[in-house]
């Protein structure tokens, strides 16, 4: 089973190499050409030494006189060949690297473009760690064999040249070579076949260990507050130890084959000496030839392993390439139409028969909604009733499974790419800040001046704390920047939406961490400004709801009632229970207090 997989993997691997060669023909050609020069010159250097032995060293020592003419030739030969060889090596190394890095960068650009293109639903299905490794480790692994590839091609040239040179000098010694070098190649092949499943497993375990660390460090606060460090360490240790054992299994195979591969050419040289001595006796070859062939075997011993390096990288490359391809080949990216949502006036929102499911569980059923331009509507419902999902369909973060969302009568799916976000802005429940300045986080590249940024910050009640930051608008926030409180982050996110002057503003419980009095100011500001927009707000707070012209009450993914607050309050029990929860609680408490006070009075009386 494993062997079948491996040969299939090898074939796939060669296809991956083909992709790279087709993409970077020029660079590959130069790299291979340089490597061919290196290959031929390696054989030539052995020949030069053989020549020097036969024509300079042996005659000079035999005759007791330095053969001057041969000396000059030998020096020029050795140096000339070495110069050419060095040039070949330099070219091979540099261009092999360039090719590899270009392909990596290309894959990374393609993959990240795809991340930006694919719908949010796709992102929800794929762990962050996996997407990160697709763009980094996988893109790197996919093109890793490109580094030794030109060398391997050069080695093939070297072997062919060596074979021709051997046959030309002495067919019998050539036979030794024809036994030894195929043996090395076969051994290499067996080596890689044994190694690749083990290496793949080690690679997987390495990724798993990394995932455990990532998640555990992400949840560091929870681990700490509940004192679960020991359990987490045990979980990590189990992974680390499994990785250790997998690495040792890899090491056993390497440890066996590496010395074998090293010993084989040495045995070859010894065989050359043995056979060559016989050939010398019969006068078929000169001592110079013997030295030349022995030297050649010494020189070939190391480079021939480059063939193995390429093979060794192939399985990992295939896995990496397949992962990268899986991202690139993902269809189901959002389709866009050509309609536009132009206009300056507040937008009208209509939802028709909308349904949505996460996997098998439906979260929204048959939702119908009509928000006329300029109105403010509150979406109210218990935790987990589907409000956030519904809000996400308004800005087309997700497409409904059934039904449609229309802005100004246009189905969002018919709007051109980028068109929806020009008209509609969503402030999500969970704030995300980029590792960027305050300005960058508010504009997100939108070409607006600082006055507009400040105006948006003012409206979001964020101007106060931003101007108090050490660098003002230029202060870095985000993962490594100044730490902001949850409420401050939410206000930046709000400013981010406001600076876009949306015609429909969707606030998904976007002020939950903001103090009530600050929230009141924000909402007041939104009402008072001339910034004309329709507002949909997911809210629990009465003050927020009170600002709405109309309330839509959701329960278990269905709209159970909708209308002005005053009408809903008496007729919709769920709604009443929800929004008056605090008041009722307070009333009860007051009644209780009063009771106690009465009792106390009675006692004292």
């Amino acid at each position, binding site marked *: 089973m494993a062997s079948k997989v491996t040969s299939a993997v090898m074939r796939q691997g060669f296809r991956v190499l083909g992709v790279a060669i087709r993409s970077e023909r020029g660079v590959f050609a130069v790299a291979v050409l340089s490597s061919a020069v290196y290959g031929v010159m390696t054989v030539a250097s052995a020949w030069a030494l053989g020549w020097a032995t036969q024509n300079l060293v042996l005659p000079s020592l035999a005759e007791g006189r330095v053969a001057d003419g041969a000396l000059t030739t030998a020096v020029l030969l050795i140096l000339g060949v070495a110069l050419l060889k060095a040039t070949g090596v330099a070219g091979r*190394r540099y261009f092999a690297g360039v090719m590899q890095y270009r392909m990596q960068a290309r894959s990374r650009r393609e993959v990240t473009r795809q991340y*930006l293109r694919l719908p949010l639903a796709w992102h929800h299905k794929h762990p962050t760690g996996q997407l990160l490794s697709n763009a980094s480790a996988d893109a790197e692994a996919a093109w890793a064999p490109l580094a030794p590839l030109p060398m391997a091609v050069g080695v093939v040239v070297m072997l062919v040249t060596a074979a021709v040179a051997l046959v030309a000098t002495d067919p019998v010694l050539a036979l030794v070579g024809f036994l030894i070098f195929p043996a090395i190649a076969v051994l290499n092949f067996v080596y890689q076949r044994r190694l690749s499943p083990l290496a793949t497993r080690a690679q997987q375990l390495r990724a798993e260990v990394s995932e455990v660390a990532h998640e555990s*460090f992400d949840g560091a606060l929870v681990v700490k*507050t*509940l004192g*679960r460090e020991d359990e987490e360490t045990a979980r990590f240790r189990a992974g680390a130890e499994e990785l250790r054992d997998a690495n040792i299994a890899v090491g056993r195979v390497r440890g066996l084959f590496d010395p074998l591969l090293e010993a084989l050419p040495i045995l070859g040289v010894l065989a050359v000496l043995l056979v060559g001595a016989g050939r010398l006796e019969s006068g078929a070859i000169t001592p110079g030839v013997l030295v030349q062939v022995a030297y050649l075997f010494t020189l070939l011993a190391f480079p021939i392993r480059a063939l193995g390096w390429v093979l060794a990288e192939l399985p990992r490359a295939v896995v990496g390439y397949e992962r990268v391809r899986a991202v690139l080949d993902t269809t189901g990216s959002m389709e866009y139409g050509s309609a536009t949502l132009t206009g300056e006036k507040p937008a009208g929102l209509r939802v028709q028969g909308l349904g949505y499911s996460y996997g098998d569980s439906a979260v929204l059923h048959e939702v119908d909604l009509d928000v006329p331009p300029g109105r403010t509507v509150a979406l109210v419902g218990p935790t987990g009733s589907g409000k956030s999902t519904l809000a996400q369909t308004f800005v087309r973060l997700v497409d409904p499974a059934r039904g449609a969302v229309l802005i100004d009568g246009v189905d969002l799916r018919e709007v051109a790419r980028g068109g929806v976000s020009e008209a509609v802005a969503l402030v999500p429940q969970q704030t995300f800040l980029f590792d960027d300045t305050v300005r960058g986080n508010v504009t997100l*590249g939108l070409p607006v001046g600082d006055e507009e940024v400040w105006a948006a910050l003012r409206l979001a009640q964020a101007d106060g704390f931003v101007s108090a930051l050490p660098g003002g608008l230029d202060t870095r926030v985000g993962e490594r920047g100044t730490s902001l409180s949850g409420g401050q982050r939410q206000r930046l996110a709000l400013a981010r939406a406001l600076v876009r002057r949306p015609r429909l503003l969707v606030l998904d419980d976007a002020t939950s961490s903001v103090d009530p009095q600050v929230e009141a100011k924000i909402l007041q500001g939104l009402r008072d400004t001339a910034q004309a927009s329709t507002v949909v707000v997911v809210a629990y707070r009465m003050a927020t709801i009170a600002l709405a012209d109309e309330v839509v009450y959701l329960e278990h993914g269905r709209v159970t009632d909708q209308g002005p607050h005053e009408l809903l309050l008496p007729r919709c029990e769920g709604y009443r229970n929800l929004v008056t929860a605090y008041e009722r609680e307070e009333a009860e*408490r007051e009644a209780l207090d009063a009771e106690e006070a009465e009792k106390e009075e009675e006692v004292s009386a």
Partner: protein
Amino acid sequence: MSSLHGVERSALATVRHGLSLTPEFRKGIAGTLALAVLATIGKVIVPIAVQQTIDTGLKGAVPDLPYIRGAVLLCAAAVVLTALCAYLMNVRLYQATEASLATLRTRGFRHVHDLSVLTQNSERRGALVSRVTGDVDQISVFMQWGGLMIIIALGQLLVATVLMFVYSWQLALTVWLCFLPLMIVLPRFQRWLSGAYTQVRERAGDMLAAVGESVVGAAVIRAHGSEARTAERLDVTIEANKAAQARTQRIVATVFPVTEIVAALATTAVVLIGVRLGVAGDITAGRLIAFLFLITLFVSPLQTATEMLNEAQNAIAGWRRILGVLDTPPDVADPGEDGVELPRGPISVSFEEVGFSYPGGAPVLTGVTVDIPPRSRIAVVGETGSGKTTFAKLLTRLMDPVTGRVTVDGHDLRGVRFSSLRERIVMVPQDGFLFDGTLEENIRFGRPSATSEEILLALTELGLADWLEGLPEGLATPVGQRGESLSAGERQLVALVRAYLADPDLLLLDEATSAVDPATEVRLARALDGVTRGRTAVSIAHRLSTAEAADEVLVFDGGRIVQRGPHAELVGEPGVYAGLHASWVSAARS
């Protein structure tokens, strides 16, 4: 830059200290090294065989075939033997290094968790992860390849040199004179290269950070249509990474072939001088030719020297980074065995003149003195940035006060064992992080020994049985990465049950139900009220009723407690609380 840098150490001291942390590596290292020495001897078999063949075997007019056969067979036996030594050495090396690195990884991991919240938050998560993954991998590459190669290369050079001096001291000196300048400049080459590699690593880090943002911020990017700008930012980092890689390759491609040329010069010099020595009768032909083979033994160690030095440097950098973690004192440290074990039961807390400021920042808490008696219900209120959360972090010892002290049942928090502290005081943070797993697994995180029945009971006691029934797979519902399959409010519910299951004596809620709907929240508050009776409860309040229900309200403003007392008293006084109250009332009723 990173705040996790350990003691300044030289490269050698770093390696020594790194190795000292992993005793598994040192165990049996002598045997492994002995095998390495034996394996190295195999490298000079070829030159010896060539010399013997030419000088003895081919001395007469007719080759001495029996002698050559004997010599070759002897050499072949030596080759097989040294290969066996190499195999044994490899296996021992892999076992020792992997065992030691697994230990190092786990220690690093544990230490990251032991660091204070403050230190943890000052690092990129990805950077912390790479300290226990990629950095350790770099060490392993070095120990199993680079480090071994250095030992073998040095051995090879030594054995070759010894043999050279045996054959001809004049030629041996010639070869060394040719290679010496290269050996002297190699460290310089390597410094260039390592500078270039550092750039590559930094650029790669930037790139990963950019990719991370584009993935984690996927919703924001889409909601605001900033795909083009994100793509641009990504491209900049991808191209910068590529440029840094290419620069490194240019240096490698320049340095690497130099060895070939030096070797050719050495070969030429040996031929030039050797022939003259030979004519003078100072060297035999076989020895002279053996020199040509011996020179090749200089090439590979020097060619790979920059790479080996580089691996060494990477490994040292890797060690430095992981030692950086291990050296960073957990500034909020567990007193461990010496610490106080608090007996279970109602808990009292005192803040005595407590002040806190972030490193290099303005004070966020000043002169906070307050007693929280056992079984009391405390509400902490104040505007954003007034110091509420800092107060909570000091109370749970996520941070230590800069001045003053916090005591629990009369013991300074700094002297209480973590195992005891975390058992007795549990905080529920606002953002309830969940692990990728089922609902049940996440709740059980609060108390690993809890049975499914106990978990169900906890949910029922908190009035969440209805909510659980509404979930498609009940307790087996998968929560997704970071719990993202649940809504923010639901995540808070899980976090609360998790903390409740841990059964602490003091429960601290940091706006723990801010994203939960009012009806559920009121139900929850009531349930909590019931089940936490007899325990101490501190709530950072975001709504009126929490403050009203509390025995005492602590009002924070500008890092100080400006008012305190029961709600009924405070609400009548002019001050911060009256203002907060007014805005709450308007928010609740409008």
